[in-house]
C-alpha cells in the first residue's frame, strides 16, 4: 500500500469493521436478551466451533476500529509532536495488548 493510499485503507477498514461490529453487537444483545446463559458451562458453549471464529474476528475488528478512531481523535486534538507520539504509542500498545488478551480469553473458552 502506497503512502498516498494509506488514508484510504484506514477509511475502508473503519467501515468494514463497523459493519461487522454492528452486526455482532446486535446479534449479541438480542441473543443475551432472548436467552440469557444460566451457567458458566452454557455460557462457554457459545464460544466453541464457528462461534470462536466469530468472537476472534470481533476482538480483532473491535481493537482495529478503536485504533483508527482514537488515532483520528489524537491527530485532530493533540498537536505537540512529543505528546502526539506518546498518545499514539500508549493507545496503540494498549489496543494491541487488548487484542492479544481477547484472543487468549476466546481460545481458552473455546478449548476448555
Amino acid at each position, binding site marked *: 500500500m502506497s503512502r498516498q493510499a494509506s488514508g484510504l485503507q484506514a477509511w475502508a477498514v473503519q467501515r468494514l469493521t463497523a459493519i461487522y461490529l*454492528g452486526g455482532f453487537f446486535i446479534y449479541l444483545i438480542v441473543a443475551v436478551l432472548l436467552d440469557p446463559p444460566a451457567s458458566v458451562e452454557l455460557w462457554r458453549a457459545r464460544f466453541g466451533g464457528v462461534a470462536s471464529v466469530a468472537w476472534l474476528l470481533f476482538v480483532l475488528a473491535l*481493537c482495529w476500529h*478503536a485504533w483508527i478512531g*482514537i488515532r483520528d481523535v489524537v491527530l485532530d486534538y493533540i498537536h505537540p509532536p512529543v505528546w502526539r507520539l506518546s498518545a499514539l504509542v500508549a493507545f496503540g500498545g494498549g489496543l494491541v495488548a*487488548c487484542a492479544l*488478551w481477547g484472543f487468549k480469553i476466546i481460545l481458552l473458552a473455546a478449548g476448555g
Partner: protein
Amino acid sequence: MSRADTRPVYLNLFRIRLPIAGVMSIAHRLSGVLMAFLVPVGLYLLERSLSDAAGFDQVSAVFSGILARVLMLTVLWALLHHLFAGVRYLLLDIDVGVHKPVYRYTAWLVMVAAPVVAVLICMVSRA
C-alpha cells in the same frame, strides 16, 4: 497593525448555534473514545464470566446491582448512539439522506432513538 491581527480570536462557543448533526457528530466521537477506554473493562468482565462458576456468578451479580445497571444504561446509550450514528454515516457514504431536511431529521432520530432503545433494552433485561 495589519488586518490579520484584528481578527477576532475569541469565540464564545455558547453563542454559536451548532446544528443538530454537529451535536450528533461530537457525541459519536465522545462515545467512541469512552468505549475505547472501556475495552479492557469489557475484556476483564468477559474473562471473569468465562473462568469458573464463581466468576460467572460474580459478573452476573455485577449486572444486577442498581449502580451497575445505571452504568450499563450509560454505556448502552453510548454504544447505541455510536451504532446508529455510524449507520447514518454509512448511508451518507452511499448518498442516502445527504440533503436538507432529511439529514437533520436523521440526526434527530439518532439522538432520540439511542437513549430510548437503551432504556427499552434495560427494561427487557430486568425480567
